[in-house]
């Protein structure tokens, strides 16, 4: 059961990475990051079958961080939208040399 869970987790993570790299919509990129966090949680739970419940405790921490990240990130997206009237990340190139 554990190797299969790790395999599914890896595939979901890779799908999330490809999504982050290919999309331009800031909200969709953010949702892909959530998918990656979910995939990592799946590995944590799978490894908690091997090493005890510490992995499940870490999943709780990851969820807390994900909730905080969603709140702050979506607030940033809202202020970007106020500034540019769009969530297209091509507009956000202030740090481009």
């Amino acid at each position, binding site marked *: 059961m554990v190797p*299969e869970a790790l395999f599914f987790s890896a595939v979901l993570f890779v799908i999330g990475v490809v999504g982050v790299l290919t999309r331009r919509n800031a909200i969709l990129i*953010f949702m892909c990051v959530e998918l990656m966090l979910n995939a990592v949680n799946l590995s944590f739970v799978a490894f908690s079958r091997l090493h005890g419940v510490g992995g499940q405790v870490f999943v709780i921490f990851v*969820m807390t961080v994900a909730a905080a990240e969603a709140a702050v990130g979506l607030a940033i997206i809202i202020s970007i939208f106020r500034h540019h009237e769009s969530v297209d990340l091509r507009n956000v190139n202030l740090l481009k040399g």
Partner: protein
Amino acid sequence: MTHGLLFQFHFYLFGLLAIAGSLLFVTRKSPVAAALWLVNVMFCISAMFVMLDAQFIGAIQVLVYAGAIMVVFIFVVMLLNLGHPAEVQDLRSNGTRITAGLVGLAMLAEVLVLSRVKLPVELPAPTPGANVTASVADVLFHQYLLPFELTSVLLLAAIVGAVVLAKRRS
């Protein structure tokens, strides 16, 4: 520990549903459709948590991820009126797409290499009727008490930060 064939079949079923849902999720144009597919993926992952004897985490996954975080996402999509698919020319240029494909293939190759690693022996599964939530709470409130308290500071900072960032400046 060996499970019945039906159990394994359902585990594979949920895993394949999660992969299919996430593929549909990354290819949708409309943010609302993508968010709903992501909720679907989260339910499948929650089912896998339960099958891996992490019932409490499975319940939290549904409540926090599918129930709270995704609602915030959908709420922002609604607030900014982004539901129309064609507004953002969404996919990046061909070069970036090829890079993404190569990165994806490289990571899948890593998975194939890592799949040769021998895993340690599984711990015995909790006996039916055992208090699985209490075992998580025991570790959380003894060994990880300080990180647990620190997350409350993190959440407070996140709330204040979100309000400050999203407040309309007059």
